[in-house]
Every structure is written in C-alpha cells, then in structure tokens.
C-alpha cells in the first residue's frame, strides 16, 4: 500500500514520531526498531550532552526533528532553531514556545510568529500548538509544514481530551495534522488515527511503560490499525438499533 506521510515534500513510511525527551539514548535504538519510527524529536537543549554527540546515536534513515523547548517567545524559538541548524540537525524544526511552567501549554500567538520567522529563514516549521482553528490557519499561512495539536497537557497521559477540536483541524487544514502530547495508550493513538490524524507523536507513554520495547510495538500496531481503518472508511456505527424491516411498514394508507 502506497500510503506515505508527506511533510514538505519529504516522504515517510511510518506515522509514528518518537519523542526522545524522556529516553535514555540506549533505548532510542530499540524504540526506533520496534516502533518503526522514522522521525525522532529531540530537544536542542539535550543535543551534545555528555556521552558525546547525540546525533551519532540516531539510527541511519531516521529524520531528526529538533524542537525549540526552552523558548519562551518567538525570538527565543528562532535562536534555538538556528543553534539546532548549526549543530547539524537539518531544516526540520518543531516549534515549541511555552511560558507557563505549570501546564506547559503552548502559546499559539508566539508560535505562529515563530513559524513565520523560521519559514523565512528556510526552516521547515512544525508548530506544536493548542488545537485552535484560527491559530492553525495562521500557522499554515505563516509557512508551517504540518500542524501538531496537543491531545492533552504534555506528559499527562490523559488521551484525546481535545478530540473534537482536533477533528475540526483535520477537516479544515490541508496540511498533515500530527497529534502531539497527552497520548497515553495505544488505543488513544488508534482513535486519533482512525479519525484522520496523519501521525502520532508520543514519548511519555512509551518512556514510562513497564516494557519499553513492547509498548513501542503496541504503538506501532495501533497506529497502523487506526490508519488502515481511516483509509478503509469506517462502517456505519449507529447509536440505536437498525431495524431490518421498516418501522413504518404497518402503515396501510
């Protein structure tokens, strides 16, 4: 089946994006292998730490998606993106602009601004955002290559709390919608894919699992299942009984 995820002209077979924030480097390889991830996000602030260069630990064929975590406004996001490019992380950049240390919710306004500034500098911006239709449109107009709405507060493992709003983005935005943050279980990843999300990003759900490799596999299968169901076109699921003969058949005249 030729069903590729296409971001800014780059093709990916996998629709699973692995967050690395809570991973030991040693585990990344295993997770990539078993979850089939082709894109790994990476906080620039974690690049180059200790055990040599993290870039050397990224398996071949995997695209690095550095993020701007630590940025509190658009200008800081741009500076971090430039540092990421200098560090050899490529043109993809996941924009994260957060200035609330409690909920870590993204600031859509600053994120849209960062999108515009980074697109002008030749980056491929992928904004992490709160699923708001107007903000998503602004980001698209500013040059985003995909839109990454949160499912629930980051790290919360609460699942698809924002489902109805993500659904609207899927309907209205022509770019890939990648559900990011808050996905706690494979079933939730499946649900998001089934309604038409283009990809899933997860980190905590796998990093904190009892068995990381098995949970990575479970996510892989769940995402494929959801995607397949979406492409198949889900059958009718009615709220009430569907009578096999007309309910009004008794009417004589």
């Amino acid at each position, binding site marked *: 089946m030729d069903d590729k995820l296409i971001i800014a002209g780059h093709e990916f077979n996998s629709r699973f994006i692995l967050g690395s924030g*809570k991973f030991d480097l040693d585990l990344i390889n295993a997770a990539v292998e078993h979850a089939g991830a082709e894109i790994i996000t990476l906080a620039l*602030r974690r690049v180059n730490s200790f055990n040599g260069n993290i870039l050397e630990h990224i398996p071949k064929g995997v695209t690095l998606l550095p993020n701007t975590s630590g940025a509190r406004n658009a200008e800081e996001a741009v500076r*971090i993106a430039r540092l990421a490019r200098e560090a050899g992380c490529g043109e993809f950049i996941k924009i994260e602009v957060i200035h609330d240390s409690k909920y870590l919710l993204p600031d859509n306004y600053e994120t849209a601004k960062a999108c515009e500034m980074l697109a002008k500098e030749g980056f491929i911006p992928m904004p992490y955002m709160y699923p708001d239709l107007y903000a998503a449109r602004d980001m698209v107009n500013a040059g985003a290559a995909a839109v990454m709405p949160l499912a629930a507060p980051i*790290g919360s493992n609460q699942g698809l709390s924002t489902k109805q709003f993500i659904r609207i983005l899927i309907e209205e935005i022509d770019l890939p919608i990648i559900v990011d943050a808050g996905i706690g279980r494979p079933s939730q990843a499946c649900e998001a894919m089934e309604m038409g999300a283009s990809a899933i990003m997860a*980190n905590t759900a796998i990093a*904190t699992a009892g068995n990381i490799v098995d949970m990575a596999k479970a996510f892989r299968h769940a995402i494929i299942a959801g995607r397949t169901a979406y492409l198949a076109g889900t059958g009718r699921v009615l709220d009430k009984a569907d009578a096999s003969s007309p309910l009004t058949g008794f009417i004589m005249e």
Partner: protein
Amino acid sequence: MPEQRTDHMTYLPDMEILEDSDIGEQVVARMKAYDYNKYTAADVKRALEAEYPSTEDFAALLSPAAEPFLEQMAAKATVETRKHFGNSVCLFTPLYISNYCENYCIYCGFNCHNKIRRAKLDYDGIRREMEAIAKTGMEEILILTGESRKMSDVEYIGEACRIAHEYFKNVGIEVYPMNTDEYAYVHKCGADYVTVFQETYNSDKYETLHLAGHKRIFPYRLNAQERAIRGGMRGVAFAALLGLDDFRKDAYAVGTHAYLLQRKYPHAEISFSCPRLRPIINNDKINPKDVHERQLLQVMCAYRIFMPFAGLTISTRERAGFRDNVIGMCATKISAGVSTGIGSHTEEESKGDNQFEISDDRTLDEVCAAIRNRGLQPVLNDYVYISG
C-alpha cells in the same frame, strides 16, 4: 547586645524595595494563619485524590494528619514525578568560590564569628576548579559564596559566571540576595537560575538567628526570587532550613511562596530544596518539631504533589541511601562530586573550611551508576542559555 542590633524588618539604604509587590507579606500572612492541627485524615485523602491540588490540599499534606499516609503520598508523588519528568534525573555540582561572610547566623559554619579558615578563589583559581569539575563530565554548576558583598562583590560573581559559562551548559548561583539590576547583570554573564534559602519564614525567629549583616534584613531576602525573575532569570529555587523553626509552617510558606510567584510569573521555572537541621539523636525529650527522615520525606512529597511540575533538589547533607530512594519519587535533581571547601577540587588540601559536613561524597560516575541502577536516566543538561 540586642539594643545595638539593626531592625531586621527595615531595608538598608542600598536595598531595592519592590513597592508594587505584596507577595512576601502574603506568604507570611498565610503561614501565620496556617493551623496544621485542624486537618483530618479525610482532608488528606481528598488532597491525595485532587487532580490539581489547592493550597488547602497542600496544607493537609503537610499536617500531622498526613503522617500515617506517607506511603500513599510517596506513591502519588512517584506517579506525578513520572508524568512530569519521565525517568530523568538531573545532575549538578555546587562550587564554593568564597567562604567570607559578613553575617552572623548562629547555626552556620561560615558565620563571621566562627574562626574558620577563610578563602576566596581568584579568577585563575575559579577557572582551575571549573576545568577540573568539567573534566568529570559535569555540565551544570551552582556557584556559591558566603554572603559578603565586600569580599565577593557582584562583579566578582559575574566574572565567575562568565568563566562558568565557558565550561558548563547551565550556570546557577546561590549567593547573597541582590537587587534586580544586579540579577540582570549576573544573568547577562551567563547565570539563569537563582537559589535563595529563606531559612525560616517566621520573622521573629529569623531575627533571633541572624544577628548581624545584610542577611538580617528579613523582607529583602524574602523578595529575592521576585527580583531575580524581574532581572531576567529563568528559574528560582526556594527553601527553608527545616528544623530552625516549626518545619510544617516553614514548608507551607516555601510552597506558598513558590505558588504565588508562579501565578504572578507563569513562565518562571520553580524548584525546591529541602535542607534540614538534623535532630540530635538520643535526646531524651523528643521534640515533635524535629525533622527526621520521615518528616523530611513528607515535606518533599507534599511539594511534589502540590507543584508536580516543579524541580526538587535533594541535598548532599542527606545520606546516599535516602538520596537514591527519593530520586524518581519526588526529587528531580541530585548533586554529585561535591566538596563544600574552597579550592578542594584541585588542591590536595582546601584553602578554606567547609560550610557543612556532607553525607554523600560519591563522584559523578558513581551517582550516575546509582541512578541507572534504579531504572532512571541521568541527565547532565536539559537547558539552553539564550542571551539577551
């Protein structure tokens, strides 16, 4: 003689007053109103169930009524730590660059009446120490001084931060409280995190413990974190020296202080430290306000549950066995390769005496191994300095 002592509530002429902030007053007022004996087991259970714990829940978790629930608090804290920090544990080392102090804090080894060997590293000495520490693989450093503006002025601390910035990715300071413009200066030099221990939030008690020096001025210290945030610092750390006064009230004040500042400055990164005065063992009168490990853990878990997103540093004063068990449960940061003397990372014999005896002298590699043994991940840096 007491009558010659300065009024501990009156700012000295060079001290900046935050006219537009009442956070310090609010913290003290709330602490005074905190009656931990009124909380019941039901309050504690409710607090443990809360999705977003309130200050009332925090109050319950610090109360004696919560003591029988320590196991449940530890379980809840572990879940919260996992959710917010995954399996990461950050590492840092403190570096003492000067132990001159002009304060007279009766409980402290550095106080100006103690006849200890005083020393101050010059810039070359600082560089040598930092180079030696950086060679161990450490990426985060906390620069400490005794509190003497004369012997370690803002420029000296700023220069130390500049040097640190060459060797480390993350630079914090734990020095005397400064004015906003001074924090801004030190921030420009490369520091982004400020730790100030209030010691105790009970101003009457504070006055009896801090007999002289700048540190005697209670409200100036109390507002240090707010000035630091206004000066552009990314994060601020809070602590009371538990056991100086009623530890439950002080811990309540610490949490409330952090809570109010985070609400006012939502971008600020918040963290807690938990130093304590050890109870004297075999004391025939057991003091209910003593902070044994059990009480210390209660406070740490209460901080974690109340502010699950906040950092929590476990002190080197605690034994390795305690430290290793609280990482992943409530603590998110642990020191390694610690020496509290002056020049002790490069000299065989340190030039200046220690502030306190440490209880965990393991190297960075040893602490990293202990972290990994618990299925956790040592993180040497999770930060990027963005100047300007």
